[in-house]
């Protein structure tokens, strides 16, 4: 199971960061996609950018503290979902003296990570703050499949 983790201190309070994470107008800029989140557990999540369309399910919504959702790629038309490539994204917000510490963790929910291997081009590239998880998150994999069924 593969996990990626990033942390960044943002020069803004948690309320402002929360808005940046959840407001479509703000997301359009930094996320570079049309993002629409139904901000409640089980709510729909939609992400649309040129050539990159995803659907998902909102999981945790704790304003100013935590937001998580699962997502997976879809073809724009027809909506053909690749639930095998699902992953879970979790944002955690923590106030710090200079603003907000935002932590993002994305973990692959697939039995095996299903994005095509980029072979030797990506090997050797510097990657900071990687976390390699060997725990199988089978419960999350099941819930992702049920949502798609």
């Amino acid at each position, binding site marked *: 199971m593969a996990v990626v983790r*990033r942390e960044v201190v943002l020069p803004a309070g948690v309320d402002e960061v929360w808005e*940046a994470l959840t407001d479509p107008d703000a997301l359009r800029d930094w*996320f570079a996609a049309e993002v629409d989140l139904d901000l409640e557990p089980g709510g729909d999540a939609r992400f649309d950018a040129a050539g990159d369309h995803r659907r998902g399910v909102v999981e945790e919504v704790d304003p100013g503290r935590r937001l998580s959702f699962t997502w997976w790629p879809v073809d724009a038309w027809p909506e053909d979902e690749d639930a095998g490539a699902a992953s879970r994204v979790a944002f955690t917000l*923590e106030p710090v003296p200079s*603003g907000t510490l935002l932590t993002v963790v994305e973990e692959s929910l697939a039995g095996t990570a299903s994005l*095509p*291997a980029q072979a030797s081009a*990506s090997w050797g590239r510097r*990657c900071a703050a990687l976390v390699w*998880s060997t725990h199988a998150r089978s419960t999350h994999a099941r819930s992702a499949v049920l949502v798609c069924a």
Partner: protein
Amino acid sequence: MPDRHTGVSVPGAADAVFNALADPTRRQVLQALANGGAATATELAARFPVSRQAVVKHLAALAAAHLVVGERDGREVRYRLTPAPMADAVAWMTAVGAAWDTRLQRLQRQLSGPRESQAKEG
């Protein structure tokens, strides 16, 4: 306090992978195994301008990172790539990590500039 850790952090495993991939000869050994299938250290050493001893050390580093596995074949050990999921997981982490780096840089810039909310409150 929210739990930040949604997966087990195994820094040793990640370090081993990137140590393994950082060396150009090790990357070439991986490529040779990908192209030609399983091989012994002796067979690999014949292809590269390094000693068999050096190849053995490289293969040990690759095995420690779970990128190759050695299987005894009589008196020899044949090395092969581990199943695709390992390489796929590394590629996934690379791609996803890069995507978040880009988004978070933009978010940082967005929150550093003048904000509409301040103008509205003014």
